[in-house]
């Protein structure tokens, strides 16, 4: 194998279109992180390391044949469930939530694994029963979603719950869940809202209340939302200029390298910058739709669709939260916020997308 062949082998399962979109978003991430951390190079280098690791994972997954993915669906799901139960029983409490499991060698957050494992399992299940699909199968698939979801809601981890619920729902939806059931679910959700409200934790209720009037506790619970909106709004059409954001650099903006990084970008690059950033997300999501539409098997279609739509939900929830139309839930801006775990999960998802796209292309040719 000469160098050229090696290079060919390396890029064989990478989708250049998707990859360019991801690369652009990651560049935005590094650029914004540098500003958000007040020119702290270590933060940027750290994220660069995270990107490197996540990229390797993406490459490995992209090179995995599809039947391998099918094969790991069940063990991954079972393992994830086991770990979630472990968390519920022996998990470590930090900041009032039980999310982490100490395995002796490392602390892990099993809910993160479930972001992929749940849709994978559901897609696998639908693929298995493709020929004889009835409402019974949908019910079982829904149970596969609800079981881990219940455990994660109990931790509590609202952000992850929403994302997993979305990913699972999209599988059900794409698998043809009857409109009547969807409508029924919506009605049921509306009807049970008061009970759900009751079931929420105090701090979760606070966050939702803050959404309607953040100023009622401007220095407390509403502080995040208010400062985020001020940062975004004060950016204006053209932004204050790179490294010039006052909300960012005078420490008014909380969580500015993680959940509120959108506000940093918005403040410094303005509405024009946001057109560009939202454009990048639309590009990546669009590519995801194209891959989904061209996916050859039931499993891959469901999987690709779910990954794409979940990525969109990820983006929507974060930006909606920073701009004050959604309550503050701990959802980072995908690919841009600092943090290795979420990046890893996302890139794993994109690896699956690339695998789906490139392997069937190989099959076709």
């Amino acid at each position, binding site marked *: 194998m000469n160098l050229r062949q090696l290079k060919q082998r390396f890029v064989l399962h990478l989708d250049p279109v998707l990859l360019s979109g991801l690369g652009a978003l990651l560049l935005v991430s590094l650029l914004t992180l540098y500003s958000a951390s007040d020119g702290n190079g270590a933060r940027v280098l750290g994220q660069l390391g995270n990107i490197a690791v996540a990229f390797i994972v993406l490459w490995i997954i992209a090179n995995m044949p599809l039947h391998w993915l099918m094969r790991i669906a069940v063990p991954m799901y079972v393992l994830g469930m086991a770990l979630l139960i472990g968390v519920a029983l022996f998990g470590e409490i930090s900041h009032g939530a039980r999310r982490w499991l100490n395995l002796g060698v490392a602390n892990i957050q099993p809910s993160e694994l479930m972001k992929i494992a749940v849709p994978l399992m559901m897609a696998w299940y639908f693929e298995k029963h493709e020929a004889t699909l009835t409402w019974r199968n949908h019910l079982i698939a829904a149970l596969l979603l609800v079981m881990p979801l219940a455990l994660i809601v109990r931790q509590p981890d609202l952000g992850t719950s929403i994302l997993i619920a979305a990913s699972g729902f999209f599988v059900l939806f794409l698998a*043809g869940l009857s409109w009547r059931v969807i409508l029924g679910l919506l009605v049921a959700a509306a009807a049970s809202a008061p009970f759900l409200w009751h079931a929420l934790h105090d701090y979760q209720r606070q966050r939702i209340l803050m959404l309607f009037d953040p100023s009622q506790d401007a220095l407390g619970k509403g502080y995040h939302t208010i400062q985020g909106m*001020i*940062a*975004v*709004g*004060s950016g204006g059409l053209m932004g204050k200029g790179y490294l010039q954001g006052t909300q960012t650099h005078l420490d008014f903006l909380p969580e500015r390298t993680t959940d509120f990084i959108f506000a940093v970008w918005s403040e410094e690059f303005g*509405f024009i910058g*946001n057109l560009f950033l939202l454009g990048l997300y639309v590009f990546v*999501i669009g590519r995801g*739709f194209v891959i989904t539409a061209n996916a050859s098997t039931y499993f891959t279609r469901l999987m690709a669709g779910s990954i794409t739509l979940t990525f969109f939900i990820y983006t929507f929830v974060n930006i909606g939260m920073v701009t004050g139309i959604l309550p503050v839930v701990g959802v980072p801006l995908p690919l841009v916020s600092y943090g290795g775990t979420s990046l890893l999960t996302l890139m794993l998802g994109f690896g699956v997308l690339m695998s789906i796209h490139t392997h069937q292309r190989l099959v076709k040719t």
Partner: protein
Amino acid sequence: MTRKIELKNSQREIHFFRLRLFVGLGFAGLLMLLLLARVFYLQVLQHGHFDTLAESNRIYVVPIVPNRGVITDRNGVVLARNYAGYTLEVTPDNIRNLDQTIAEIGKLVEIKPKDLRRFKKLLAERRSLQTLPIRTRLTDEEVARFAAQRYRFPGVELKARLFREYPYTETTSHLLGYIGRINQQELEELEAGEVAANYLGSEYIGKTGIEQYYEKVLHGVTGFEQVEVDAGGRAVRMVSRTAPESGKNLTLTLDAGLQEVAVQALGDFRGALVAIDPANGEVLAYVSKPGYDPNLFIDGIDTESWDALNNSPDVPLNNRALRGQYPMGSTIKPFMALTGLHFAARSPDFSISDPGYYMLPGSRHQYRDWKVGGHGRVDMFKSIVVSCDTYYYGLATELGIDRMHDYLGQFGFGKRTGIDLEGEVPGLLPSTGWKMQRHQQIWYPGDTVSAGIGQGYQLATPLQMAHVTATLANGGVGYRPHLVKAIQRETSAPPQPLFDLKIPAQDIDLVKRAMQAVTHPGGTAAGSFYNALYPVGAKTGTAQVIAIKQGEKYDEKKVSEYNRDHAWFIAFAPADQPRIALAVLAENGGHGSSTAAPIARKVFDYYLLGKLPKPLKKAAVSDTAEGD
């Protein structure tokens, strides 16, 4: 066949899936548009609003306190000044363990129990985020010691500040008043007056006296520095600066030398002395004794000093010149004489034969003259010189209380003089209407008799007596007594007369000559003005504190000190061309002639001749005439 069906199924399935996918795509697209609209709303439509919010986050306005105006006397002698010094100030809201922090500070800088007590008192009254001084007037060494360790004390600041100081302490206390820390009530008043912004950085406000009355002028205009701060409140850089405008300096009408002489002359008496330039109402001396040290009040007085001042039987905090109301006694007689002339109730030549008492027609009650056996034949001139009571008992009865009220009121009795100090009281000039309203009683003829010698319901403040004396000395043309001559060296227009009683020249002449004779041999104040190098017009007075029963004689030795008579003395000099008019009141001083007149002599000697008095003894020179 089967293969075909399967293919068809798969086709349909893909079609069905794509339909779902498009629904998902539409859903995502709509929400994306929602985000875009939201961002557009925030960044384009609401940009102005959020920009303002971001600016107010970032820009912190630091007030720059103006220097308070300096107060000097008419000759430029400094009475209230500012000096630079260091305080150690604590912001309790920013300190986790206050007691421990104070203990730690105490290791570097001496904190006396007195400082601590004062701090505790301030702590209880503080407004939120206010900084409070734990120690004032640090020595250079203490400043250096703390400065080296300041990093250990977040929330504790070493502040270079200007301090107020009153070098004359007790001598000028009732006149200047003092500044003190702004309290909650004053803050609310500032807010109500919409001047709170000017006091953003100010910690002090004039509490009494000139400092209070001229607060607006003395305070100045606060400057501002716009500073960029981070979320932790740390200043990052300065954005802009508006310089403060210093408070204006005040030049008083007061003569500090005269003031000192007056204080000394009053000696240990409780009482007051006010001296006025009759030609324009300028207050030359303003004394209320005992005084207090106003410097104690500036940074909050400690409880012990406060209790000492507040509980003293001498009531040093009482501004007697302004707020002390006393029966005026015989000092009212020259004014009564003018009232008699005004209403033609008496001609100058009319004389009575004084048996030593007065009886109302149809009554056997004797209103006694101070002199047993009487003064013999007494006309108006003599009535003033010897202070004949019987003459005025009759005059008052003839005039009636309401006519007395009307004319004496024009002189300024029973009214505030309008001096530039807060809290002046009006005294009391009774009338039949007043008595009915106040006591629901009719006016008895006997009330009028004692009113004739200033011993009834009438009350006057020492300031008021000085004011009416100055008016008399000036021939009936009155000026508003005032303490400030110039603001920032800009002398205002010469004072205009407040009123002119248009007293006929011969009338005023008669009264003034009689008052002059008071200081001549045979007059009630002759002894005190023996050998005076200038002519003096005067009148003595004695105000009873307790009533003496019919047929009993007042004996100074028999009554306790606080029940002794008050001694009054009013005078002006030189009598022909008055440059100074004054009123002296010595509480429980006994006779005006023996106690109050010598005090006036010392003040005149200094003012007119530049003569400094010898150290005074209490209960001074005795007089030839015993006085009224």
